[in-house]
């Protein structure tokens, strides 16, 4: 991680593009870090499993069955992951629409995170498809299943990836030293942001709407007609909690890339983000409560699924909400981070509950992911972190953009 702050300076421009790319692909810094030592073997096993998945069929690695056709890859990598990528649309809203400047220094890294996350969710989706070569059917050709929620979600995924690419593209242009392109791309930012936020509200809720037709298959404590709204609201604090969590890690790992000024700003940001999370969670809890009252499921609370539900609501929403409130009042950074971690666990619980655990809770044979599914799910995340790290140590994401880009960047 000892890259120069401006990777491409004048004299480098004389290099050929090829040399430049080869150079940039080489690893920087030490190889034998603990993270590498753990992640490389997992990734290798994961890649081998992916090969098996395509040569032997889904059943060879995955435990999904006829009653529970969506397993860990859909429920965790896609449905849960997208919630965490929600930070990108919330932050672009705060920075570009509300123009709260103090968050500017973290907007890029969040957008990068969101972009990579979506790329890899798309990857997880392809792994999970039985006939991935037909994936373009709903996009080109006359196979529009326009009445399908999944059709909508798929399209929004695709468009949102493009919108995020545009939002992030100025950083790429700065890395390559492409000034003309930088100017044009920066001009597109606002449009991409508005488009991106709109798409996000729709597909965050859309992921919940996917389960609307499974009305008898999902346990009544989790199924209700408001799943889309609950998914949308929870994506706000899910995303921001991820921003807080990810920030506390990159602050350590990429310490040198963050200027002293930004480091100070980051701490005050955590405080106000905590406040937003707390209010978001309050609204969410209140909605959950209304939905619960409306559903009249009092009797179900005194069952094992009921305790599980209460654990999710009290232990992983109400508790971190209180912690966030307290942390923002006392500006206690550590407490905010603890709250963020609990919230993240809670969101994982919630999404897995809707998509897997409470799905077919009454089935004779419960779905339990195989170790191979778990390894592949982790591989996807690890590869994403690798690429994230590669980009961070090369492009001006955490550090300040080069001076020439200052006047054009928002």
């Amino acid at each position: 991680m000892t890259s120069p702050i401006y990777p491409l300076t004048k004299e480098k421009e004389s290099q050929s593009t090829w040399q430049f790319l080869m150079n940039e692909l080489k690893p920087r810094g030490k190889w034998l870090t603990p993270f590498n030592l753990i992640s490389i073997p997992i990734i290798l096993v994961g890649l081998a499993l992916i090969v098996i998945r395509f040569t032997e069929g889904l059943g060879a690695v995955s435990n999904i069955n006829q009653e529970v056709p969506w397993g860990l890859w859909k429920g965790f990598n896609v449905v849960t992951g997208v919630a965490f990528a929600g930070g990108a649309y919330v932050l672009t809203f705060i920075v570009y629409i509300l123009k709260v400047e103090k968050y500017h220094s973290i907007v890029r890294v969040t957008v990068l995170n969101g972009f990579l996350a979506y790329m890899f969710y798309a990857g997880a989706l392809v792994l999970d498809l039985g006939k991935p070569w037909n994936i373009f059917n709903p996009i080109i050709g006359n196979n529009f299943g326009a009445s399908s929620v999944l059709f909508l979600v798929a399209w929004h995924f695709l468009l949102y990836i493009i919108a995020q690419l545009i939002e992030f593209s100025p950083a790429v242009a700065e890395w390559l030293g492409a000034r003309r392109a930088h100017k044009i791309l920066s001009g597109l930012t606002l449009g991409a942001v508005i488009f991106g936020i709109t798409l996000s509200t729709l597909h965050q809720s859309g992921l919940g709407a996917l389960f609307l037709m499974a009305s008898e298959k999902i346990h009544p404590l989790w199924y209700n007609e408001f799943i889309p709204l609950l998914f949308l609201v929870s994506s706000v604090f899910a995303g921001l909690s991820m921003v807080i969590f990810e920030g506390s890690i990159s602050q350590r790992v990429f310490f040198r890339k963050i200027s002293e000024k930004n480091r100070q700003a980051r701490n005050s940001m955590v405080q106000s983000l905590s406040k937003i999370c707390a209010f978001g969670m309050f609204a969410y809890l209140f909605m959950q409560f209304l939905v619960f009252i409306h559903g009249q499921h009092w009797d179900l609370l005194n069952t094992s699924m009921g305790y599980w539900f209460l654990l999710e609501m009290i232990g992983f929403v109400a508790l971190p909400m209180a912690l966030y409130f307290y942390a923002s009042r006392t500006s206690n950074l550590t407490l905010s981070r603890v709250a963020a971690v609990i919230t993240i666990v809670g969101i994982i619980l919630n999404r897995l509950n809707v998509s897997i655990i409470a799905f077919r809770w009454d089935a004779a044979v419960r779905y339990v992911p195989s170790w191979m599914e778990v390894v592949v799910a982790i591989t996807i995340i690890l590869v994403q972190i690798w690429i994230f790290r590669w980009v961070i140590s090369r492009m001006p994401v955490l550090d300040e953009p080069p001076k020439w880009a200052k006047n054009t960047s928002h």
Partner: protein
Amino acid sequence: MTIDRRKFFKSVAITGMTIIGVNATGANKKSSGDDDTEFHGILYDSSICIGCQACEKACAEAHGLPEPTAKPEVGVIRKTSENQRCVINAYETSQGEVYVRNQCMHCNEPACASACLTQAMYKTKEGPVIWREDKCMGCRYCMISCPFDVPKFEYGSTNPKIQKCDMCYDRIIKGEKPVCVETCGDALFFGTRRELVAEARRRIAEIPELYIDQIYGEHVAGGTGYLYLAPVDHKELGFDTRLQNSSYPALTKGFLYSVPSVFVLVPTLLLGIHEATKSRKSKEENHD
């Protein structure tokens, strides 16, 4: 006592139906010529089904699937699978042993087809809900959505298919009856949905001892192409009584309808806020 009565009527019905059945098929041909947009379906009469599995075997043969070996057995619920598109199960009821067939219901408003993002699952104008291999991408959202858990996926294959009953669509467009109906004596009856309902009502009215006064499929899930007559309450026959009577795709309508308005309202709102904050900011800067 009642069981004996029931057995008696059952045999009467079987012989009687053979004659009526011929007439009914004749009428069927005429009307389908007049109006080919009407959905076709199958009436399954569990009161007279003898559980011989002839339809199961014919189905397997017609669709190149392995011949089923297991027999219907009380207490064992066989399920349709990637190797079997229809099954007959036996239930011990207050009226003795009763057989129930299980396969795709060919819903009037199929959840599977509205879920499918490539229109691979498709409600044909003739009535059968079919699956089209060249369009499917194997996302299995149809399986998530079908309230009857019908579509089955070939997890063991690298080019997996979705297996489910397609009411022998290829035969129907040629003017033939589905193989199961062709094979079965009287427990399966093919026709337009309207004819099926009329026929079912007629059977109930004619021999009320043999049937409960309900046609399963008339309303469930918004109405299905498969209709069931039964001698006992559906609860005793393993039907999922939690299923709603209104259409399943309607559950997503609210969300889908809100999409266009979100696309208009949200960007407008965002632009509005953007403009508002911009002017506020420039004012602040002026003050500085």
